[in-house]
């Protein structure tokens, strides 16, 4: 009896704090065994690499919180990237605005399909995943375009208060999204819709508008990640940018303890999920383990994380 209780308690604890414990454990391991781990340069590199995934994962966490999923985030990044060289002639601000607008449109389109036509999120966003990158390549003529606008490229190279711009943007967005979920009516409605849609309807929540808003927001966040990645790469590369991003983002969200069944969004957990996956990858690379091992370890982590999280569905 007590054993069963302990087991339930352990599972509960792992569900709540597993991702933090894993991050701390990995950090300690690296501090002890990895040469040059505790250097500012290393932390910068890790954070800069993790920033785009983090931004996309924030949007993904919201979508998953509504019991949905957005497979089109990588394609949306490509769309945003493909538009930048077209409008960069008018200056960085219009180019970024157009990229974000594309993300907004893509997300709204997904949201419309899900909320108003009642199409399953996985198929609705699959269509844009298949078509979106193709459209981006058509816009860009299938070419990689080098960018030379110094003001735009500064997004990928400059620091503000010693923090790279991309990391700063990711941090600010994480705080904003956390506030959105925790402190606003929209956030409450989002979680309620994910937990029990029918109840949401009966309670008079604007279920459709909430869903539309969530997918639109996810699209915009993906576009932000697309803009930042493009700036860092100093080239618009719609063929490669954000490839398999949907998988990284979903992984981070799930590892961070947000259940796929909806009704709960953990923003700090999601950010920690991104950090954890980045740390895992960095650790394996620094110890000269090849990419193949990294992918297999990543697969194992996903399975374990979801296995642990699964018992929460009995809530």
């Amino acid at each position, binding site marked *: 009896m007590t054993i069963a209780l302990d087991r339930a308690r352990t599972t509960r604890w792992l569900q709540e704090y597993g991702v933090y414990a894993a991050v701390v454990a990995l950090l300690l391991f690296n501090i002890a065994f990895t040469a040059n781990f505790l250097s500012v340069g290393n932390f910068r590199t890790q954070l800069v690499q993790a920033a785009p995934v983090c931004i996309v994962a924030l949007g993904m966490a919201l979508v998953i919180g509504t019991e949905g999923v957005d497979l089109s985030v990588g394609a949306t990044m490509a769309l945003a990237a493909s538009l930048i060289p077209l409008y960069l002639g008018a200056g960085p601000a219009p180019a970024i605005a157009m990229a974000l607008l594309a993300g907004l449109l893509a997300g709204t389109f997904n949201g419309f399909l899900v909320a108003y036509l009642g199409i399953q999120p996985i198929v609705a966003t699959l269509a844009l*995943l298949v078509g979106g990158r193709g459209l981006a390549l058509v816009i860009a*003529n299938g070419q990689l375009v080098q960018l030379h606008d110094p003001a735009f490229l500064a997004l990928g190279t400059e620091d503000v208060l010693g923090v790279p711009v991309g990391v700063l943007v990711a941090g600010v967005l994480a705080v904003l999204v956390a506030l959105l979920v925790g402190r606003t009516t929209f956030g409450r409605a989002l979680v309620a819709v994910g937990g029990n849609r029918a109840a949401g309807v009966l309670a008079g929540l604007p279920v459709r508008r909430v869903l539309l808003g969530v997918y639109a927001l996810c699209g915009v966040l993906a576009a932000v990640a697309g803009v930042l990645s493009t700036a860092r790469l100093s080239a618009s590369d719609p063929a490669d940018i954000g490839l398999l991003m949907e998988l990284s983002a979903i992984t981070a969200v799930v590892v961070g303890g947000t259940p796929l069944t909806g009704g709960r969004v953990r923003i700090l957990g999601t950010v920690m999920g991104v950090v954890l996956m980045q740390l895992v990858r960095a650790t394996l690379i620094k110890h000269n383990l090849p990419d193949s091992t990294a992918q297999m370890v990543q*697969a194992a982590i996903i399975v374990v994380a979801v296995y642990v999280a699964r018992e929460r569905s009995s809530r």
Partner: protein
Amino acid sequence: MTAQMTAPPETPAKPRRELVASVLQRQGAAIALVVVVAVAWLAFPRFGSPDNLRDLALQSSFLAVIALGMTFVIITGGIDLSVGSLYALGGVLAAYGSQWGFLAALLLPLLVCGAIGLVNGLLVARTGMAPFIVTLASLLFARGLLLAITDEGSTTYQIAPGSAFLELGRGTVFGFGYPVFIAAALCLLGGLVLRRTRFGQSVFATGGAEQSALLMGVPVARTKIAVYTLSGVLSGFAGALTASYLQSGVTVIGVGTELDAISVVVIGGTLLTGGAGTVLGTVMGVGLRNVIQNIINQIGTLDSNYQSVVSGAFLLVVVVLQRSLVRRR
């Protein structure tokens, strides 16, 4: 419910709208395929040439084998994202195994990919984890395994010239490659299994209403394990066929193939919610996808990237139509 979905009673009292809906749902891909083929035949003289038709059939055969497994999985209400990786892995394993002869080249991919499919099935059926996430993990795992076998993707195993295994992918009958006949036979067999066997009924029942199926004594867990294993085996086999055709285990294929497979299954009228679908529809979906791609290639001046735009738009139209025509549970 399930019985209704699989064999709708043809009563004359049935409203016409519903009849139209059901025909479009089940035969939409076939009708679209006929139209598209007719247009292509009239508009492009080269479309109807024997060479082009042979190419078309051959290209379709690999995807058809993968989509066949996906059809089973989706009818049980699941999804298998690992097929693209398993397809690539199967090809590499076949080329790797071909140094020990025909049987090794054929069995190695089937066993390994089947085993990964089995693990997918066990995790989905026994732990209740979402199929989406389980197969996402095995997508990564299979890619990792592939990289591990090929020295991080830098080694491409060749199949020795003169190897008997090359016949499998390169042999022809009446000009048509063996893969075309193999794929046709597998799809025929798959269709029969789905419609005429107890296992097929279990597949429909599992996807139609899992709780009721359980109460009726349908072996839901075993059915799920079986369909994921089947999907793994078929993906590995498609990879082996491709390796034999290409004479080597190409490491970079199969990225995004899971999405192609899901698209053609959905276009073929199989509902992603499970409980309804046909193998014939899937075959039509494969044909439609590849004929459209062929037309875009024939036009020549069109950017080949339009292919994915058209595929995405088409998928969307089909899903929206399905949604508006078919009353769902």
